[in-house]
């Protein structure tokens, strides 16, 4: 980083420049997170509300109660399946996109990625219309003679919605690693007699693996904390960790328990991200060494 001579003279300048933003982030990010962590260790009484003191009871409750086990397992299952489907669909899609002519590619990339910027509520609502009792998919099922099925408010509906939201997060990193791919290695392998499948397996897959891995971690992390999709497509029956936190805070009003679950969710998310960074560093070190 170069430092212009006259700008580096006042020592406090960079601090002054970051000061306002730091104040805001300290007040609205650091302090609230610390408060929430503290709250998760506070006693709670359904009649009195939050009481002082230190307790692990909320964490113990989450770890020991089958009710919470089921919700955590369901969240893991939904996020895991979403991740697998995103890999199975997103990775080949990114590959096909990279082989298109530039004009088509630009249009298709836009179609695949632009939904990223459109409100989650809108997309969830679109799916609830498609999957509803009178929805388009049920009408098609009736025409084909299969008959109406209960699609909305099932785990399948949640997975469909999650896959739709998360697909861009898988396609982007795979696409990025495909961009770095040297086409001439492919040509070389082909000209040396490798079958297209061998080329795919031995040359393309190993090179896009980091992209798939980074996409998977992002998709898994975001799916596990997704709120709108399970809320709108899962209904009241399909509770996930996110909707559980919402209920504890806004319906049960048991904030300390909600805080404990939120802290677990946060720590799990940070661990995933940290693990991802470690993994990437190790890869780079190996690649360099």
């Amino acid at each position, binding site marked *: *980083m*170069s*430092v*212009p001579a006259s*700008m580096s003279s006042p020592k406090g*300048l*960079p*601090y002054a*420049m970051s000061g*306002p*933003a*730091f104040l*805001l*982030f300290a*007040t*609205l*990010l650091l302090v*609230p*997170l610390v*408060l*929430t962590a503290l709250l998760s260790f506070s006693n709670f009484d359904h009649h009195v509300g939050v009481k002082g003191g230190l307790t692990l009871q909320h964490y113990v409750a989450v770890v020991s109660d089958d009710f919470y086990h089921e919700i955590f397992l369901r969240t893991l299952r939904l996020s895991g399946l979403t991740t697998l489907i995103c890999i199975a*669909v997103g990775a080949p*899609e990114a590959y*096909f*996109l990279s*082989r*298109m002519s530039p004009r088509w590619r630009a249009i*298709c*990339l836009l*179609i*695949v*990625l*632009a*939904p990223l910027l*459109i*409100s*989650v*509520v809108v997309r969830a*609502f*679109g799916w609830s*219309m*498609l999957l*509803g009792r*009178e*929805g388009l998919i049920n009408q098609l099922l009736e025409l084909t003679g299969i008959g109406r099925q209960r699609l909305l408010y099932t785990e399948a509906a949640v997975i469909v919605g999650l896959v*739709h939201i998360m697909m861009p997060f898988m396609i*982007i990193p795979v696409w*990025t690693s495909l961009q770095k791919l040297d086409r001439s290695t492919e040509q070389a392998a082909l000209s040396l007699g490798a079958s297209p499948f061998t080329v795919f397996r031995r040359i393309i897959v190993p090179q896009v693996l980091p992209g798939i891995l*980074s996409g998977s971690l*992002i998709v898994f*992390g975001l799916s596990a*904390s997704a*709120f*709108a999709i399970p*809320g709108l497509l899962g209904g009241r029956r399909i509770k996930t960790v*996110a909707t559980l936190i919402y209920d504890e*805070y806004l319906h049960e009003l048991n904030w300390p328990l909600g805080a404990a679950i*939120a802290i677990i*969710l*946060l720590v799990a998310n940070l661990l995933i991200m940290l693990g991802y960074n470690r993994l990437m560093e190790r890869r780079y070190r190996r690649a360099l060494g």
Partner: protein
Amino acid sequence: MTRNGIPALIFHVLVMVFMLAPLVIVCLVAFTPENTLSIPLTSFSLRWFAEVFRHADFMQSFWNSLVLAFLAATISVGLAVPVGLALTRFEFRGRAFLNGLFLSPLIVPHLVLGVAMLQLFSLIGATGSFWWLVGSHVVVVTPYALRLILAALVGSDPSIEHAAQSLGASDFTVFRRVTLPLMLPGLSGGWLLSFINSFDELTMSVFVTAPSTVTLPVRMYMYATESIDPMMASVSALVIAVTAAAMLLLDRIYGLDRVLVGQR
């Protein structure tokens, strides 16, 4: 250039249909003349759009969201410009920490941010305050603004600034005539991306809005969990229109592919 085979193309078309289906259906149903969620085949009507504009709660939330997104984007860019300059032009203690801190809202689930801010607001009696809501949105969208501004600053050659300085320009002149124009695309792109993200934010806002400050996504979420009628489709179509307009601008100014693909 290698071409995709027929199976690959079929696969690709299916993915496209999957990605577009929910958006297309929303936009079609928005024009239904019926009372049910049906796709209009013979006649189109704007009655449900009229219904939206007559619905006081939705209109109020729409304006709330628009003002909120405008303020949040403007303030976050205002904060991110000096931060971006400090991070790229100076070497100082705590630089890595600040960099991590300002980008951290990207990896903290919005749900966790929501409950954390809810607790702070209830402690200091800020629930229902519009300005604290603006503050919470600024925290969430600042990473987006900062990232584009950082990219613009890292990409610009500091020797141009040196040249201007050595020719006798003052620090302020260098900033106004050299640095600012160089980072203008990143700055305006960052503003638009922040605007879109604030306008769409649901998960955190669910916790920190009060009846008087309910934003459009939160209002839509509440509405959709209770009843479903074609008005919801019309509101959704309007949201898509606002977002698409912002995206079009973003594409013109900064390049949508750069924002989207360079995002992670």
